[in-house]
């Protein structure tokens, strides 16, 4: 991104990827974002920090990315009454992030939509958990809010409310369908049910320990989050992790991608009425988890990635086991893909279902795996080559159909590629230490970590306090970008296809609700 036309000075930003910090004054924030938008930059994350304790008011932070790297726009706001510009006309995904920023920090945008997003009457509406002087009271009881859903009226229109407790083993969220006959006219999501106060909770951790909480922002992406967190801490500390540690992290990240994609492929078959697929893929996923448990000490590799490297060296015997398993899995995958591809009933459910055209995907900012199925060819592993990816050279998956079939196809391609990557990583693994001690982290600077998780880019922004504690940590899940797109993907589809469409995105509730 070139901010030259606005005459904005850029500073370096601690981050393992190319990144700049762009402080802007009042009135420049929107201009800077518009300039970036014109240069095809994407919105990655938006959050607010309370810096009143060091006489700096509040600060709105916006992370944008394009092919050249990341930019963190920092817009200082004198006090909570200062509104910040509404970015949703440029980036529709900003709508919910702005509302969440108000719910947690008490600084509002100028947007027309001022409905709460993460607030659900569990604390008074005029208290803000991420303000420094927030003091929770034991008297605050869980309450019920009266959320204003958009209503559709007309002949034959009816409404189906679903959730928060769903009819399956799924995370909680509320979906409000407006229906005519069996066709979906409109869907509105209401999320926030699993808000656990993660960002506030980070403040109770030291920088060296926060990786454990980061690894539990969204349990299915524990490696991605822990790695993004560790990279942010290391960038701040100026630590270059040992090469072997980088390779081991990539190994774990690819294993996480394989396990999740296999699980999704099984459930997508099941939701398409093909129980055979679930039995087969859930068996393969279990095989992966069991080998993970042996090699990494945990089925999901929780707490394996730590600041400075990884928690344990990889036993050579297990390395061979990982490699052998991938060869066997690749064969099974090819057989199952052929079965899926040639199953007329399944393809009938998958094709032209839940379509997101590349144009719509670009407008709404669809990202990650779902983005790549709709022509948005971005993948941090390929776009910013770093060890070990600069050696093993991952191939980017991509489709332009944007339907359930495309998202299934991208998963098949990515599992196959990750199986190859695991083997290449095991073969090319450099010798050396698996971790280095994390030096003290300087306070009051923001560092970024960004990793392509299986769902999409996971970002962690970290700032330390003067005592080695975390002052502010903002984890951002790609689900923020993709949840609103599901509202569009289901329009005109039939209600019974919603579970299939939803599963084809498989977005995180916990990672979003924080």
């Amino acid at each position: 991104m070139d901010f030259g036309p606005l005459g904005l000075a850029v500073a370096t930003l601690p981050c393992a990827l190319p990144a700049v910090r762009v402080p802007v004054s009042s009135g420049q924030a929107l201009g800077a974002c518009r300039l970036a938008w014109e240069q095809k930059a994407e919105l990655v994350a938006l959050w607010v920090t309370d810096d009143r304790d060091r006489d700096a008011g509040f600060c709105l932070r916006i992370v944008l990315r394009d092919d050249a790297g990341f930019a963190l726009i920092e817009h200082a706001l004198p006090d909570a009454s200062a509104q910040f510009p509404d970015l949703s006309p440029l980036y529709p995904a900003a709508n919910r992030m702005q509302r969440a920023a108000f719910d947690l920090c008490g600084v509002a945008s100028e947007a027309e939509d001022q409905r709460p997003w993460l607030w659900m009457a569990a604390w008074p509406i005029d208290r803000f958990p991420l303000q420094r002087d927030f003091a929770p009271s034991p008297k605050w009881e869980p309450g019920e809010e009266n959320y204003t859903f958009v209503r559709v009226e007309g002949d034959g229109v009816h409404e189906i409310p679903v959730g928060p407790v769903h009819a399956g083993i799924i995370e909680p969220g509320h979906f409000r369908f407006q229906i005519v006959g069996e066709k979906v006219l409109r869907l509105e999501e209401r999320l926030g049910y699993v808000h656990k106060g993660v960002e506030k909770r980070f403040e109770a951790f030291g920088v060296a320990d926060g990786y454990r909480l980061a690894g539990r922002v969204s349990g299915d992406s524990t490696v991605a989050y822990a790695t993004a967190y560790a990279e942010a801490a290391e960038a701040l500390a100026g630590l270059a992790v040992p090469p072997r540690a980088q390779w081991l992290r990539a190994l774990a990240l690819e294993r996480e991608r394989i396990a999740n994609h296999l699980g999704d492929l099984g459930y997508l078959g099941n939701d398409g009425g093909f129980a055979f697929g679930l039995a087969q893929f859930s068996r393969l996923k279990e095989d992966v988890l069991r080998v993970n448990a042996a090699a990494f000490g945990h089925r999901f590799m929780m707490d394996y990635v730590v600041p400075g490297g990884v928690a344990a060296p990889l036993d050579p015997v297990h390395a061979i086991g990982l490699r052998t398993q991938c060869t066997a899995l690749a064969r099974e995958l090819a057989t199952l893909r052929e079965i899926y591809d040639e199953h007329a009933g399944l393809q009938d459910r998958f094709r032209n279902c839940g379509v997101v055209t590349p144009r719509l995907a670009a407008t709404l900012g669809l990202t990650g795996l779902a983005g790549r199925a709709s022509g948005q060819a971005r993948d941090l592993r390929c776009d910013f080559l770093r060890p070990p990816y600069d050696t093993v050279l991952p191939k980017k998956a991509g489709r332009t159909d944007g339907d359930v079939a495309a998202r299934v196809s991208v998963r098949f391609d990515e599992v196959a590629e990750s199986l190859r990557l695991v083997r290449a990583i095991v073969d090319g693994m450099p010798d050396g230490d698996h971790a280095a001690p994390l030096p003290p982290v300087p306070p009051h600077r923001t560092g970024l970590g960004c990793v392509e998780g299986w769902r999409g880019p996971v970002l962690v922004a970290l700032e330390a306090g003067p005592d080695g504690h975390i002052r502010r940590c903002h984890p951002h899940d790609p689900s923020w970008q993709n949840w609103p797109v599901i509202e569009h993907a289901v329009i005109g589809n039939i209600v019974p296809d919603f579970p299939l469409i939803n599963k084809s995105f498989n977005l995180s509730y916990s990672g979003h609700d924080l």
Partner: protein
Amino acid sequence: MLQILRQIAKTGIKSEPAPAPADDAVVAARLQQDIVRVLGRALTIRQVDAGSCNGCELEIHALGNPYYNLEGLGIRFVASPRHADMLLVTGPVSKHMAIALRRTYDATPDPKLVVAVGDCGCNGGIFGASYATLGGVASVIPVDATVPGCPPTPTALLRGILAAITAHAPPVTPDTEADATSPPDAGQNASSGA
């Protein structure tokens, strides 16, 4: 079609008597007997995510894979609490889910069992009790058994389900004595709760 049948034949039966270690075979056998003894039929479970990070859900899903073959033990996940004998609840209980969890509990017919799953379900885990969380399932509804772990393995989950059932099993009579040959301990990973 031929290819599907070939794949099924090639895969064979993957279901394990019960996962290692060896004495888990006893766990599975007892579980089935206790289910019948306590409930007189299959056990139906309603899972409720009350603020989990989704890690526990991954392992609960795994219970259904061919290796653990939960349905083969006579245990089934159902879509409505009204059809359930047991609630399997995860998460530190976010305040936003507290009312929904309470309502789910109220909608479950008596007699009902509640198993709190994961470190978070037991005591709030890494999230603890905060402005947004209540710090464990027992702070909202009565809990019959707890299954610690982050997340607990499928084997630990099976043990926890057994613990909840045996805690409510009627006293062993001479007729059922054969069932009671294994020790009453439910295993390291599961303990009877409040």
